């Protein structure tokens, strides 16, 4: 059976960041199903495409990333959401993790590190899902 590509939604108001993330995600073998330029659009696209992974900026027009994260978690708490932002305040990081973000990547990271982190994050998430299924089946 052919493996389905992981479907990724990118939400960031900066076009060059979206391009970079898109490039990284595609190079990992995943498919970018949507690129949202603000929080409102991100929510619409999330409902429309039901992506496997959401890469979410925080500072975005209309609806901020933390509100988007909370709304996504209210819809499906098992969604893999990764915050990708330049905000490095401890309280913001804690709020995102406590709200259900699976990872929090700072934008000052290099493209190489970003590639590695997204790949690792996906692996960890899939392992957690499998472990959870094993517990449920046993």
């Amino acid at each position, binding site marked *: 059976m052919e493996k389905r590509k992981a479907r990724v939604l990118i939400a960031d108001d900066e076009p060059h960041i979206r391009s970079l993330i898109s490039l990284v995600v595609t190079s990992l073998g995943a498919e970018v199903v949507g690129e949202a330029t603000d929080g409102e659009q991100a929510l619409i696209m999330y409902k429309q495409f039901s992506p496997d992974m959401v890469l979410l900026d925080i500072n975005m027009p209309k609806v901020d990333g933390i509100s988007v994260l909370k709304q996504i978690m209210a819809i499906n708490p098992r969604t893999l959401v990764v915050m990708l932002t330049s905000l490095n305040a401890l309280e913001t990081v804690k709020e995102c993790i406590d709200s259900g973000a699976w990872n929090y990547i700072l934008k000052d990271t290099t493209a190489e*590190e970003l590639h590695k982190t997204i790949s690792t994050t996906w692996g960890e998430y899939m392992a957690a899902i499998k472990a959870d299924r094993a517990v449920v089946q046993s």
Partner: protein
Amino acid sequence: MTCNHLNPAGYIFCATCGGALEAARCRCGFVAATGDIFCGRCGTNLAEVAAGDGRVVANADHRFDLESLAAQAAQESQFLESTNKARVTQDDIRKLLTKRRKKF
């Protein structure tokens, strides 16, 4: 003091009758002018000192307590503010994730 002479600030005895003006000395040590209602240093009600009802001690001490509490609160607020504004690195985030990441 019974002559009701208005003595200048700092006088301990009445310049007219020689009566003790201790009532005008606040618990904090400041000697207020006769006729002053509140201590010029700590704000204690001097009428209560004159009445000798013992509340002055409590008031003066209480005032100092409030000042120290306010200083303490300011320190705590500063600390909390610095904590809230604490910046993290990607390594810090990794550590936080191991502690706080949700479980399925």
